[in-house]
């Protein structure tokens, strides 16, 4: 079966298979992406992030339905954490998007982080490209959740949508540092709860303090479960999209992100090359024993490994 041909024809199975191959670091998959790379760049990527329980999946489901009403083709990558102990994962985001399962112009894929820290999985980059080639107009990436280290979404999305719920309380303090800065649009979900207005005010105040660019992230109250104000929120995302396109900032942003991606790919490859050598003949094992016994220090150990690649 020719995955590439079928992918270009819009075959869901081919797209699904391609994503699997990418997840498994299959060379064939990379080759396909290489050949079709010129077809990417059309899909608009929206990163959906926010703490667990904030309603990201339900909100993504609603936003997708709005886009579908406009006839847009939508892809959704839902990422959930892989257990560091077993290597397994429960990927349950689809449940909140049951209706969309049968929509022929929606593609939903669940992914485990598989050890990657950053809120997404290493294969998410490739999966976005696959969905782009497949023909999506919009791609949602739903991250694991927001924490200090999980900001990779910025490196992949055109618009970052941060989902919060009222009464975050002390959590707002914790997330102010750096995380607030990555959002292009804020959604306060579960707006029927007490404290929604207060939370909105707090965020606005925080944005006031950090005002720098000519773009001010909007803060919208919504209720995903009640399907309220979803159209307003989508419009705000659209506004950001238009802003980026009209000012040329979209190209800038994507270039920046792609640079990061290239560096990441190089890093990965180099590490692979070096560690392969180190693992040959148990060098790494030996060195770690010596370092533990204090007959070797970690810095010298590093030099020993690096010198292998210089050969």
């Amino acid at each position, binding site marked *: 079966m020719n995955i590439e041909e079928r992918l270009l024809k819009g075959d869901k199975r081919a797209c699904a298979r391609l994503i699997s191959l990418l997840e498994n670091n299959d060379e064939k998959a990379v080759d396909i992406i290489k050949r079709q790379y010129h077809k990417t760049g059309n899909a608009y990527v929206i990163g959906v992030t926010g703490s667990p329980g904030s309603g990201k*999946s*339900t909100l993504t489901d609603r936003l997708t339905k709005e886009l579908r009403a406009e006839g847009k083709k939508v892809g959704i990558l839902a990422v959930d954490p892989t257990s560091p102990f077993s290597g397994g994962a*429960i990927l349950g985001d689809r*449940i*909140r998007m049951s209706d969309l399962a049968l929509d022929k112009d929606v593609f939903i894929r669940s992914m485990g982080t598989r050890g990657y820290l950053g809120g997404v999985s290493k294969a998410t980059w490739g999966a976005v490209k696959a969905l782009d080639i497949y023909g999506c107009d919009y791609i949602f990436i739903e991250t694991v959740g927001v924490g200090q280290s999980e900001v990779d979404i910025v490196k992949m999305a055109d618009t970052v949508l941060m989902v919060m719920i009222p009464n975050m309380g002390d959590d707002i303090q914790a997330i102010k540092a750096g995380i607030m800065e990555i959002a292009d649009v804020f959604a306060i979900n579960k707006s029927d709860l007490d404290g929604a207005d207060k939370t909105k005010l707090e965020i606005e105040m925080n944005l006031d303090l950090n005002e720098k660019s000519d773009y001010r992230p909007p803060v919208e109250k919504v209720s995903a*479960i009640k399907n309220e104000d979803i159209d307003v929120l989508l419009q705000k995302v659209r506004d950001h999209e238009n802003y980026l396109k009209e000012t040329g900032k979209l190209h800038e942003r994507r270039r920046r992100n792609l640079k990061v991606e290239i560096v990441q790919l190089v890093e990965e490859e180099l590490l692979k090359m070096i560690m392969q050598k180190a693992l040959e003949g148990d060098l790494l094992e030996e060195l770690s024993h010596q370092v533990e016994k204090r007959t070797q220090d970690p810095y010298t150990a590093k030099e020993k490994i690096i010198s292998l690649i210089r050969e």
Partner: protein
Amino acid sequence: MYDEKKLEQIKSSFVDWDENKVGKQLSKNPERKETFTTGSDKKVERLYTPIDTAEMDYERDLGYPGEYPYTRGVQPTMYRGRFWTMRQYAGFATAEESNKRYKYLLEQGQTGLSVAFDLPTQIGYDSDHGLSEGEVGKVGVAIDSLRDMEILFDGIPLDKVSTSMTINAPASVLLAMYIAVAEKQGVSPDQLRGTIQNDILKEYIARGTYIFPVEESMRLITNIFEYCSKEVPKWNTISISGYHIREAGSTAAQEVAFTLADGIAYVDAAIKAGLDVDDFAPRLSFFFNAHNDLLEEVSKYRAARRLWARIMKERFGAKKEKSLQLKFHTQTAGSTLTAQQPDNNIVRVAIQTLAAVLGGTQSLHTNSRDEALALPTEDSVRIALRTQQIVAHESGVTETVDPLAGSYYIESLTNDIEKEAMDYIEKIDNLGGAPKAIEKGFIQKEIQNSAYKYQMQVEEQERIVVGVNKFRIEEKDKKELLKVDPHVELLQKKKIEKLKSTRDNEKVEEALEVLKAKAETDENLMPFIIDAVKEYATLGEVCGVLREVFGEYEQSVIL
């Protein structure tokens, strides 16, 4: 219950016994395991003594049967006055076949009816709905309209029997149909006795047959409370259930905690809707599980009674005696039945029956031996009924009230379970009450963790299930099992077609229009639902209208 000096004496003699007698025995012959636990994994001590119950006050903590806090029973004479109602859950395929089974059971000495509905009915779909494919008549009787209900109770005098209907999300509709059937028999609503399960919160938690979102479901429930308190005063309007929570894998204390927390939520909702607590509380009833660990189960029921009485009195200020009494139905634990060596299940059910009876249940359903595999055959269900009759007439446990009271272990365990349940209820209160706790997934997570732990214990052989992980045999004896006729679906579809062509469709339209309009207001919907079913609107049509107005509950995963 002992004076200080005596207690000190016992404390020291206990230490003496423990160190010497026990110590010596252990060095010769160690105990079978390191730790001993109840069925719910609670640690069990080697021995219980007056020390464990020293703080108890008979009148304050136990009381007399029929007196606050009802630890010893809600009724002064209990089974000496009247046995518990023997109420076998039944129903399958068509109304005609179920009617036959009901008549059989009544002849065999069953004293109340219990109706099982199929899944499409429980979820408000007619037998011809797309999602009903393959499900019609499988787990209970298919009721598509008042016509089916009339057949179901044909020849059964509704003024003489009490009927329990296991129906939740569309309870209002089935109750309306029951009232309509009774009317045709010449029986007025105020004569009707029975129960509807009507407990939507546990559906979200553990059973899955929900339709509408939480708020709208609570509205229907309080509508029923209000309507029945005036028109159907002998009807138990809710059976707040712990059975399914336990089946989903919870511990005994969790079963009490989550059930009572749900109860608190219903009382809160009714009060908020303007009802006076003493007007509806007397008709609240409960439904518990009877699991394997007999002693733990007995303690559990007693703890539940005492805790609920305290909650109703202190938290809600209820004044009527009947408002403080926790009356309950019990079902033996389905999840303990094994597919391997099914006759063993008869023994399990007998033990569970003893637990429920020693615990003071008001009515009981006993499972049949073949239920790990299919719905029961006539023979199997008769044995299940006989189990209750043998316990009632031959075992002696019904000759006195609350015979296990005063046991150091039982009282100690009753106290423990009550305390653990109170802690959980406090947690749930802090989360904003049961509905919020469910939304946050707190209750579900607790249950799943217990369920997973249990499964791992069984697989590691820390917990023995006879016939499954120990004492196995080559299963060869094939039992005769009940098979539901697959043509039921076809039959029901034909019935619906016929109904729709012979009823007055204009009147149906009208009634549904009125119902829809009323659903958008705050009015009590019962009268309008009754009007609609009397015109032979189908269950699916009535629920369809409500689905339009209320929307549907959306599940989320908590794993």
